[in-house]
């Protein structure tokens, strides 16, 4: 039984909609700028990947806007784009349409603003809880499109989107749904959340004056990730049904691997990453030799990029240098729970177009990062298989494998 991607929707700092996103990606455009949504002068990291042209009032009624957090609004737009791209889902019984969404933080914009009010002894908005809860994006997608099947939310930090897509694959294989709206959404370019990541020394602090060059996965001198927001949604269905309804077919979702380090709450670990990648490849009934492309987790933290490089070398051996690797976060920053969903769309577009988008800001690589990361310029490599990696806090490692249709 094969599962096919039949629709895609993306809302990102480098573009809304797959065409705009992919055009910016292959041209190596950075979406990182000085933070505009709040006064960030008290933060050490004052830059972010914001979706500055996003305006919820262009597609949502005042009622939706009042009752939804920004992460839900981003998810709603990406879901609408994906469902439209898939030609609509009206041929399916609503009870057979599932939703599976990942988000690391959920509605933290609401949480932070309500907390401020509480500490100032001002009334707390009644929709504080329904807007903050992590499953609100999945719930609102269901409400807006009347999708009455399984409705799941996965919150595994930075790997949330990958696990949500992997869970969708499991739902389709188990016959618990006929089609799944799956992906991730995040909107935590926020003072408290960013401060929390800053204290962990996870965010870049040395590039406030040069935002476009701040995110530099695998490069010498990188100093942390750049917070970003966005959403990515895929429409996934079994090949038989997709063929029956004459759906457009982008790629095959062939495998999903998952592994927990069970070691440390925030530090990455090579073994877990190897295990997740191997798991995805074996789940697809393939061998490591068949992997052509990796959309790396690659957040631009000093340690993380080295560990992922080691993991790739450990799993693929001498072939590691032949694999075209690319870091979408060099363009967007880190969209946390949305990152692997957006990374999946980049992976699928690489399979569709043959182009690997560049890892930008990679003039000089870290000596410990010595693979082919597609530095600075897109490459025509015609990959037939692509892994999308996502490694999150909690030692949570996920990898998903996409292939071309043949």
């Amino acid at each position: 039984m094969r599962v096919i991607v039949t629709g895609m929707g993306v809302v990102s700092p480098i573009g809304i909609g797959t065409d705009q996103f992919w055009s910016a990606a292959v041209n190596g455009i950075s979406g990182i700028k000085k933070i505009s949504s709040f006064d960030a002068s008290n933060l050490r990291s004052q830059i972010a990947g914001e979706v500055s042209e996003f305006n919820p009032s262009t597609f949502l009624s005042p009622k939706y806007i009042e009752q939804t957090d920004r992460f839900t609004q981003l998810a709603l737009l990406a879901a609408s784009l994906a469902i439209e791209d898939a030609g609509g889902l009206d041929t399916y019984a609503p009870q057979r349409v599932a939703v599976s969404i990942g988000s690391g933080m959920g509605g933290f914009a609401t949480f932070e603003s309500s907390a401020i009010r509480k500490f100032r002894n001002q009334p707390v908005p009644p929709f504080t809880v329904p807007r903050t809860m992590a499953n609100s994006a999945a719930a609102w997608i269901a409400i807006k499109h009347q999708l009455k099947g399984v409705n799941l939310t996965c919150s595994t930090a930075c790997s949330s989107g990958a696990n949500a897509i992997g869970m969708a694959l499991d739902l389709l294989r188990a016959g618990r749904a006929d089609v799944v709206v799956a992906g991730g959404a995040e909107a935590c370019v926020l003072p408290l959340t960013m401060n929390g990541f800053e204290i962990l020394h996870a965010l870049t602090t040395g590039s406030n004056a040069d935002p476009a060059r701040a995110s530099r996965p695998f490069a010498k001198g990188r100093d942390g990730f750049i917070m970003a927001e966005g959403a990515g949604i895929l429409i996934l269905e079994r090949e038989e049904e997709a063929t029956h309804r004459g759906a457009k077919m982008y790629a095959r979702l062939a495998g999903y691997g998952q592994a927990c380090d069970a070691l440390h709450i925030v530090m990455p670990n090579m073994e877990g990453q190897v295990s997740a990648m191997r798991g995805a490849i074996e789940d697809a009934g393939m061998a490591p030799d068949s992997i052509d492309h990796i959309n790396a987790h690659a957040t631009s933290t000093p340690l993380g990029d080295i560990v992922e490089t080691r993991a790739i070398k450990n799993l693929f051996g001498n072939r590691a240098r032949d694999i075209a690797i690319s870091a979408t976060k060099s363009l967007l920053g880190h969209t946390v729970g949305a990152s692997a969903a957006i990374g999946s769309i980049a992976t699928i577009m690489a399979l569709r177009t043959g182009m690997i988008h560049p890892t930008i800001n990679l003039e000089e690589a870290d000596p410990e990062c010595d693979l082919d990361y597609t530095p600075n310029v897109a490459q025509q490599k015609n990959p037939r298989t692509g892994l999308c990696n996502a490694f999150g806090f909690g030692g949570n490692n996920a990898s998903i494998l996409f292939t071309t249709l043949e």
Partner: protein
Amino acid sequence: MDTAEIEAKVIQFIATKVENLDTSTISRSSKFEELGLDSMDTIQLLFDAEDTFGINFDSEEAKGFSSVGDIISYIENHQAPASS
């Protein structure tokens, strides 16, 4: 704020809670139920009013509200006097 301004604000708040509501049909005698406001919408409406008019609704009294006029009258009777 005078009565007309309070009424206009309250109607504006109601319009954000119900999809496709013709605001010209809203009057002081309109019942929440007729307008399609559910209990969560009403709680949010009271929050909007508290935030805008700087008042606090007595929760027991607010439980008895059933019409737009009930809220407007409460605001009229409880808003702080305008500073001169």
